[in-house]
């Protein structure tokens, strides 16, 4: 196909991606948006397959069949509770793809050009070695960010899945110095490659340094900060794609990578704000000093009241408004469908039910919304923190299911607390608070939660799903 036609096709697909994301701004148009973006991808792919540089198809077809199978199986099998791991893995593959594309472009540029090609190249480049340099810098950047995204995402995946390693921060003495040294090595290698100084040897050094860098950057980050890390790696995968676009002068890659990069950065900011953490603190695994906070015994000693499902069901029967506060515990115990039963039962009794969604509830932005949507709970009932907080005072019962730190009143009241200043859901303002939880163990922040010992709180100890089903049964009997 004519080169101009192909370029035009890339422009069309970029436009379709933009329309696709625009569709995502409303739940009603979102499915169509996703479809438009997929069509955009098809346009770009078909155009590229007709490119005059594509001479052999066997490896392309083999790769697409293998990748397509893996991707389809992942997408169909994955449980909604495991969506953070899925996105972490996809981020990693995206980074890896950019890494390999950049590597391939580097390999092509190192091939001695022959015959007509060489003459054409010397005519085009006549004295234009600075352009050669820009391309080489773009190659280096794509390799660096792509490789960091690849290994960083694999670590994030392992942490979320608790596969081989736990979610706890992992580090060793002098880790930050090693990380800094690796970054320096990578940047120097890019600089030298751009000057055409031992490019082939240094390229390998760059790949290895960048792969190690990705590991060391994510290992020290704790489970609570994973939503930030996934969002950030999402952004990196976009920036890597953009850099790959600069190597090839490909508009589709540049525009798309920029969109994805911007998306990831915005989500990162939202997550940081919702946790009252700076990005630097997250990246360097810095937690506020836990210091002199009250111990579990001081907070809970003799003050925690627990109740059974029947008792709580009686409370609910006389309630007019109930707010459910879901957290990661809900995902852990797969309680979303049970919660839907509870909601239906309460609504059947004429109770108004809403859900309070904290931005970092779950392990990635919007995770709770997807889980509740899976259980066919209407998104109109899911209310964001800023809008639901003023309504807790008119709420008869707030039911907290597997959420902890995002309800901790110390964030509002105790200036000495490490989580002071983090925006929380003011569930303690409700007339009665029911907390469904396995035990009094602390959340990610490792702090006791005075909410559990509050005057108006009843603990319902047990597995989230079972406890909710017990409540439903008790409500139906009563």
């Amino acid at each position, binding site marked *: 196909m004519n080169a101009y036609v192909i370029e035009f096709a*890339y422009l069309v697909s970029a436009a379709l991606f933009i329309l*696709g*994301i*625009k569709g*995502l*701004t*409303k*739940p009603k148009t*979102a*499915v169509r*948006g*996703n479809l438009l*973006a997929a069509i*955009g*991808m098809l346009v770009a*792919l078909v155009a*590229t397959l007709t*490119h005059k540089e*594509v001479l*052999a198809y066997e*490896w*392309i077809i083999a*790769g*697409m069949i*293998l*990748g397509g199978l893996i991707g389809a199986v992942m*997408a169909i099998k994955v449980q909604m509770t495991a969506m953070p791991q*899925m*996105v972490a893995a*996809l981020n990693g593959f*995206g980074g890896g*793809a*950019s890494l390999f594309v950049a590597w*391939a472009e580097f*390999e092509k540029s190192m*091939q001695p050009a022959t015959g007509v090609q060489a003459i054409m190249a010397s005519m085009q480049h006549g004295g234009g070695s600075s*352009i050669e340099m820009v391309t080489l810098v773009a190659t280096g950047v794509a390799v660096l960010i792509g490789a960091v995204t690849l290994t960083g995402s694999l670590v994030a995946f392992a942490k979320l899945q608790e596969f081989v390693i736990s979610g706890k921060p992992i580090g060793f003495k002098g880790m930050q110095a090693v990380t800094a040294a690796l970054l320096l090595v990578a940047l120097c290698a890019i600089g030298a490659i751009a000057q055409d100084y031992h490019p082939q040897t240094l390229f390998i050094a760059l790949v290895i340094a960048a792969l190690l860098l990705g590991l060391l950057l994510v290992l020290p980050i704790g489970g609570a900060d994973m939503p930030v890390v996934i*969002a950030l790696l999402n952004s990196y*995968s*976009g920036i890597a794609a953009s850099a790959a*676009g600069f190597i090839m*002068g*490909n508009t*589709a*890659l*540049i525009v*798309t*990578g920029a*969109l*994805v*990069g*911007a*998306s*990831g950065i915005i989500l990162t900011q939202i997550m940081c704000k919702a946790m009252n953490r700076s990005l630097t603190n997250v990246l360097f695994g810095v937690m506020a000093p836990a210091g002199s906070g009250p111990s579990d015994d001081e907070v809970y000693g003799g003050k925690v009241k627990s109740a059974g499902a029947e008792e709580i069901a009686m409370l609910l029967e006389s309630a007019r408004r109930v707010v459910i506060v879901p957290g990661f515990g809900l995902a852990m115990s797969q309680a979303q469908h049970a919660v839907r039963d509870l909601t239906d039962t309460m609504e059947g009794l004429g109770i108004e039910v809403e859900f309070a969604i904290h*931005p970092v509830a779950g392990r*990635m*932005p*919007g995770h709770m*919304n997807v889980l509740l949507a899976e259980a066919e709970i209407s*998104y109109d009932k899911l209310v964001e923190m800023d809008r639901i907080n003023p309504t807790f005072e008119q709420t008869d019962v707030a039911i907290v299911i597997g959420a902890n730190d995002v309800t901790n009143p110390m964030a509002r009241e105790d200036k000495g607390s490490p989580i002071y200043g983090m925006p929380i859901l003011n569930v303690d303002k409700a007339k009665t608070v029911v907390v469904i939880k396995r035990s009094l163990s602390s959340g990610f922040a490792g702090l006791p939660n005075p909410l559990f010992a509050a005057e108006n709180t009843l603990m319902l100890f047990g597995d989230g799903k079972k406890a909710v089903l017990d409540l439903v049964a008790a409500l139906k009997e009563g």
Partner: protein
Amino acid sequence: MTPMVMMLLFALFVIAVFLGVELINKVPATLHTPLMSGSNAISGITIVGAVLAAGHGGDNTLLTVVGFLAVVLATINVVGGFLVTNRMLAMFKRK
């Protein structure tokens, strides 16, 4: 690629970043997870570069291997990303 083309590409990048910021800020929090998987899918556009590498047709084995790996990874992103996003969004649509 001439310096002028390079500058134009850079301008395109900067404008796309601004457009991205405007657009993404309008996506409601309830759709943030599908937004992430969806943007994963479209960042699979690297498949374009991967196809050019894997289909070079020469006898450079390293280039073929690297190109093949790039095609595999980019295709996982595209297929997995669009399918899983569709699966999630379909849940939001029904009511």
